[in-house]
């Protein structure tokens, strides 16, 4: 198996299953009488420890792809194996569990609850995981420390800058120690300084072994990743900027 990037675990030949294994995923939305095909047969694998960037112009279907990877949406057809498990057979409860324990989300709009402090926001996934209160506070503090906001734990989102809010949401994505971090245009609403901070954070996370899938339409953001794939009109096309991307592993079909 040929792989791209510096994933030592794969290079060492540990025969691990990919975290994400999409096969012929299609997604059709019906807007009134018109059916819109957002994804028209996408196959993609993401290996453990990878830092993958999905690029594409707006409307290309890249967000839909990420929502399906993150179990926020279900495909119309095709199979999606998450660490070998078929997501389509999971119940609503099991899906909630997957979103809670195995996936950490970072949204373009941050999606923090305005009424809660940074600490309480970061605690939310732990609350749904049933972690006891004392443990929760400790782990949330650690996560906030890790993103450099140890001194802002009692601030509400409205009292934080955009970059700080996005770092809170990264801390929230990290706090349950997920297998996969999904970021949907995480720098889309940030200025260049904040963008640099957040991307540096992703670099650190990747270096410490986290698997990251990031969606962006900015080339310099995508360039930070280990591998890029591009979505055009609901189909994957060859990665841009990286010549030696191997079609057979990274992109199938």
């Amino acid at each position, binding site marked *: 198996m040929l792989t791209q990037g510096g994933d030592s675990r794969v290079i060492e030949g540990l025969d691990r299953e990919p975290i994400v294994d999409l096969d012929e995923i299609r997604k059709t939305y019906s807007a009134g009488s018109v059916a819109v095909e957002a994804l028209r047969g996408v196959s993609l694998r993401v290996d453990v420890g990878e830092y993958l960037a999905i690029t594409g112009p707006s409307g290309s279907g890249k967000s839909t792809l990420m929502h399906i990877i*993150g179990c*926020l949406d279900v495909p119309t057809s095709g199979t999606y194996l998450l660490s070998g498990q078929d997501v389509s057979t999971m119940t609503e409860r099991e899906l909630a569990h997957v979103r809670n324990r195995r996936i950490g989300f970072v949204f373009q709009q941050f*999606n923090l609850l305005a009424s809660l402090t940074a600490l*309480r926001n970061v605690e939310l996934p732990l609350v749904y*995981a049933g972690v006891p209160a004392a443990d929760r506070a400790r782990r949330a503090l650690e996560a906030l420390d890790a993103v450099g906001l140890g001194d802002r734990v009692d601030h509400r989102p409205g009292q934080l800058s955009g970059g700080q809010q996005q770092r809170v949401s990264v801390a*929230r994505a990290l706090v349950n120690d997920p297998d996969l971090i999904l970021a949907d245009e995480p720098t889309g609403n940030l200025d260049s300084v904040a963008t640099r901070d957040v991307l540096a954070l992703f670099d650190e996370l990747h270096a410490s072994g986290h698997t990251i899938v990031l969606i962006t339409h900015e080339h310099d953001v995508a360039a930070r990743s280990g591998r890029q794939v591009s979505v055009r009109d609901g189909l994957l096309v060859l990665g841009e900027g990286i010549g030696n991307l191997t079609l057979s592993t990274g992109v199938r079909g």
Partner: protein
Amino acid sequence: MNPLETLRTSISAILSRKMRSGLTMLGILIGVAAVMLTVGLGQGAQQAVASEIDSLGSNLLVVTPGSSTSSNGVRGGFGSATTLTLADANLLADQNNCPDISAVAPIMSSSQSVTSATSNWTTSLIGTTPGWLPVRARTVTSGRFFTSQESSDGATVAVIGTTTASELFTGSPVGQSVTVNGTTFTIIGELNTAGSSIAGNQDDTLLIPISTFAERIASSAQVGSVSSIYLEASGQSTLSAAYQEAQQALDTAHGTTADAADFSIASQASLVQTATSTSRTLTVLLGGIAAISLLVGGIGVMNIMLVSVTERIREIGLRKALGATPAVIMRQFLTEASLLGLIGGTLGVIVGVIGARLLPGVISQPVSVSPVATVGALLVSLLIGIIAGVYPASRAARLAPIDALRME
């Protein structure tokens, strides 16, 4: 997510929307308090009427004359006839005729100006016999009531009510004298205080022997007749027997039949029934208005909850994205809606109870707290809040997280 955590989340959600939560609770509060007070007002009136009639005396029957028909065929109102006489009263008092009647009090009455040494006062002058005291369930607090002897001899003695006494005299009235219609009476006793009833102030009265009334006070039309006869049955169980004995004795004496009697006998129960049926209509009317106000309040609460949940569909989507199951989301909104309903409802009950205490002082109407209305109003408002809060939340909880997140 354990119940404590759910509660904590709900409380923080309520606190973070103080205005909206406050308005929701206000709607419930007003609905519950309005139902409590309006139903309480109706029931209070009903109870007051019942207790006033109770205070007339227990096991009471009242015989009143029928209507008179003049020579040219004009029929007067009930009680206008002069068909009841003192002889009738004596007949009813006869234990051989009417063994189940324990006390008889014939009444002659008119409104008269009463003059004391220092002032004068118009009061209800009643001529009666000593039977009046047990029949009306009254007592004499100082002095004594007149005797049967005085009652038949036309003695010029009088027993006075407390209101009349305080209008005419400054100290104790017993031993003082008053003048009515040119006759001077010596006050020999003072009645206990009975308060006001539908029949007026029961303490504003002057009692004199019935024979004295007939001789010195009664107008020529009144002479020989009495305006009513009060009867007391010997017990609750003999009330209907007493009723029949009185009916028979009077029919025999008057040569009439029960269908065409020139008098009528009303029992206390029938008086209560007549009076309470009127106030029950009032209660139903007030309750209906209250129910409408609860409904309108409920629709307001529904509206606020609906908007509040719709605004929070994004939050629901986010919570789902972070791992909340639909059941957890439902529990959170159920807890929130129940808390709002419970707090608002409890405050409504408190306002209702306080209102029921303060209102009688303002409108001089008794207001009772009805447990049925209270619990009913509380349940209805809770139910409205929960349905209005949980229904849209359950729909949102079933959406795919991303659809909820996209909702603006």
